[in-house]
């Protein structure tokens, strides 16, 4: 088992290399090249000025070096073992060094800072959605399987495929338009993750001069409701169907019949035996849920104005900001691969029949 895990982790590296190389070269050969917009931010100003700016970018970021060299330099930069980069840009001796993600061309700041600011927001959104997706999906699935053919079952069957088909863009726009806009109901805020005043509020709701102040925690939750709904309705519908199918399969199996014959109460059969065996199917898809949510959260972040990783990535691609795009791809790819490895490990843990020797 341990061998298998180590092997999978080691295999992640060539894949990550492939992912970043693919994205880098596609971006590098696109019109505009790397850092295209940075060089034109001063278009129209004096030609000498523009020339100086170009020279500066070339010196600092090496934009006009051959593409493979640029990629190589980036690889060197992120690895803990490589050629040391001195302050003036020249290369030093080979050895251990601190890996660094580089600087963003557009914002003139270390990429690490950008990610530190934005990753928590995206993670917050996704990590709040995942338990909701699972709990809702599994609970609905169990309920539907319990009384197969009953009212709950037919209704949920009919709606779950429909819910899965609703495009996120439509759901987001409609939710904002109907629930959060000025013309209709103004139940929810239109954008952002918290109101500006909340930064000064205390955490929990409290009274100030006999007026209830929402408090930071509740404010964030209120802002999160609509985005989380958008992010989770599709996956939870999918999980419902999966759970139901898997549960039905197990409910018709031999061991269930035996358990009933032995006289066990229905609840015990359902929750202690059938559910456990059904989770296998759920785990198989678990690897796909987090990466697909990261993808879906790009759209949700865009619609709801949440400054997260998705927006960072989109903007960086449009700007051809080399370091940021590579960093975002690296993180996204790493999350996908890691969740696959995690899924396989969980699978082995959950099902004693499966072994990776």
């Amino acid at each position, binding site marked *: 088992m341990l061998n298998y895990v180590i092997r999978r982790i080691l295999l992640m590296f060539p894949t990550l290399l492939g992912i970043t190389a693919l994205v880098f070269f596609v971006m590098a050969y696109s019109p*505009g090249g790397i850092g295209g917009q940075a060089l034109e931010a001063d278009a129209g100003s004096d030609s000498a000025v523009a020339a*100086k700016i170009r020279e500066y970018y070339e010196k600092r970021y090496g934009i006009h070096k051959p593409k493979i060299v640029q990629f190589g330099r980036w690889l060197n930069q992120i690895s803990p073992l490589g050629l040391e980069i001195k302050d003036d840009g020249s290369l030093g001796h080979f050895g251990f060094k601190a890996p660094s993600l580089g600087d963003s061309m557009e914002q003139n700041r270390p990429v690490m800072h950008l990610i530190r600011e934005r990753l928590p927001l995206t993670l917050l959104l996704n990590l709040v959605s995942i338990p909701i997706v699972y709990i809702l999906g599994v609970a609905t699935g169990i309920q539907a399987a319990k009384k197969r053919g009953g009212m709950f079952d037919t209704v949920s069957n009919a709606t779950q495929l429909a819910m899965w088909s609703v495009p996120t863009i439509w759901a987001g726009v409609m939710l904002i338009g109907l629930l959060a806009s000025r013309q209709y109901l103004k139940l929810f805020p*239109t954008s952002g993750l918290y109101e500006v005043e909340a930064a000064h509020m205390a955490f929990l709701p409290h009274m100030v001069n006999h007026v209830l102040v929402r408090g930071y925690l509740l404010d964030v939750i209120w802002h999160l409701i609509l985005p989380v709904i958008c992010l989770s309705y599709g996956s939870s519908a999918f999980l419902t169907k999966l759970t139901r199918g898997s549960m039905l399969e197990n409910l018709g199996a031999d061991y269930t019949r035996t358990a009933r014959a032995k006289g066990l109460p229905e609840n015990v059969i359902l929750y202690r035996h059938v559910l456990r065996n059904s989770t296998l199917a759920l785990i198989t898809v678990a690897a796909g849920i987090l990466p697909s949510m990261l993808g879906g959260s790009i759209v949700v972040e865009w619609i709801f104005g949440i400054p997260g990783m998705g927006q960072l990535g989109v903007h960086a691609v449009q700007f051809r900001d080399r370091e940021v795009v590579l960093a975002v791809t690296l993180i996204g790819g790493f999350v996908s691969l890691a969740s696959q490895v995690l899924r396989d490990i969980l699978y082995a843990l959950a099902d004693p029949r499966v072994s990776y020797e």
Partner: protein
Amino acid sequence: MENRFGVKDLVVFILIGIVITMVGLCMAQYDRQWELIRQANDKIDRQTADLARIQNLLARGVIAGPTSQPAAVSDAQSAGFERILKAESYPDYSTGDAVYDTFMAAPAKLTPLVSQEYTASQVQSFVLDTLMKRDPDTLKWVPSVAKSFTVSDDQLTIDFELRKGVVFADGSPLTADDVVFTMDFERNDSIEAIRARAYLDKLARVEKTGDYHVRFVFKEPYFMSFTIAAGTEILSRKFYSQFSPKEFNESTGLLFGSGPYRLSDPKNWHPMPGAPIELVRNERYWGVPPAIDRVVWKVIPNPSARVTAFRNGEIDSYDPTPEQYNGLCADNALVARTHHFAIEVPNAPYRYIAWNEKNNGEPTRFADKRVRQAMTMLLDRQTIVSDIVRGYGSVNTSCFSALTPQADPSIEPWPFDVARAQQMLTDAGYHLENGSLIGPDGKPFEFELNYNSSNSVLKQVAAYIKDSLGRAGINVNVKPGELSVLIDKMKARKFEVYLGGWSGVLESDPHQIFCTDAIAKTGDNFVSYSNPELDKLVDQARSTVKDELRNQIWHKVHRIIHEDQPYTFLYIEKSLNFVDGRFKNVMAVKTGVNPLQEWFVPLTDQKYK
């Protein structure tokens, strides 16, 4: 069997997880409280230091009354403070309150020189001072930190005399040393002052000729020399020399100066997503102090959230789009409690259509001047203004704003005259056949119109152009594109027609856009327009430092550009603003609404402490 992971275990795990999360949240909350306490402590320390200083002064017998001004501003008249002083004479004048403005995107850095965004420069303009500044109403240079200046006869040397008594926010005096330090700092290669340094190419040296005297020496006469010298924001040598270049480059909030406002903590400011940017009053300001205590910018990226915030009174100043402006004006209750302005400003951005005369080395249809003129006459630009900008704009005739002395006021825009345009095209060898205009080369007249796909106003303008030109038989293929792609096309000079805009400046230099030597790849003359007479005139103007002579040359340039129509200039927009009604002394000046240092709020109307 015994080791099976049961539901009970799951519940226990979940509870433990919740407890851990709550503990984490508590720690975050505690941190925030700690931060607030620390800021309060800093404030108390500063106030104690000030109190001690005042007590000291009182003990030595220097009386400071409520109406006396700091010694530096005895000649307030010439320092651009007239409007504030006038406001102070109003009966309900009172200090206090705050202005809440808004940014579309938070500036990543506020540190001067290394920050690149327009939002950062807005914040910096309140904190840093320049040697001279432009009066927003008369557009003339007025003394700020510098009291007076002299220009040598050969136009290469400018001497400034600084005021005595100008201090930075920590009380240290501003002397010639600081000015020299600023210029050296900008030219230091390890400081990433990209844009600033690029402009300093023509500067030979800056030297201190006395404690309060500075001399700028330029290599050659250049009409922007004075702007470069007088408009540099002065940094404090004492403050900024504490940091190594690397620290400076990586910092996000090292903003410290002598202006009317300051950051409450200039060493530790970090951009926090969603957090507003706040400037507080500089109690030690050397000039006439503004009435408003604080300036706060909320970051609201979503346009509809911004307008909602303004309607709810959460922000005090808002620049609407034409559509929003009309919507806001239709709300009577809102109009009653706000000021609103629609001002034509000289530094408005302008939109244009660029007709490429040499695509990929081959001359195009637009190389013929008559074709370009005909294109301009086929477009009803007035309708574009009234439809797309809802009338809040005007047709312009060149890259020079009609409100500046650069433009020749006698030049009228080309009329919307379809018949005349068609005649011109016939003269140029075009004829109509089966609904298409066929050119002298026998091929139908069609082209691709490129524009930035993220701009929805341009999308509407492009649709209008397609319809108008289609009526004359010209087939327009509208092709929106990503900005990077467009830039690439234009740099390579491989496009047909481009619809875009240039930002506005108070004095525009057409050299980069219209001169022949800008056709090379490093220039921005991407339409390959070439007129030797224009080149000569522009070169002459650039080296003429005297304003009146130079403007006469610009008039001639204007006439040539108008005649040749290398671009079809479409329109400029008015500056639209809404300001909350509790502010008094808000008025329209030449460059827009007057700066907020001149506003005040009567005591009874004040909203924020």
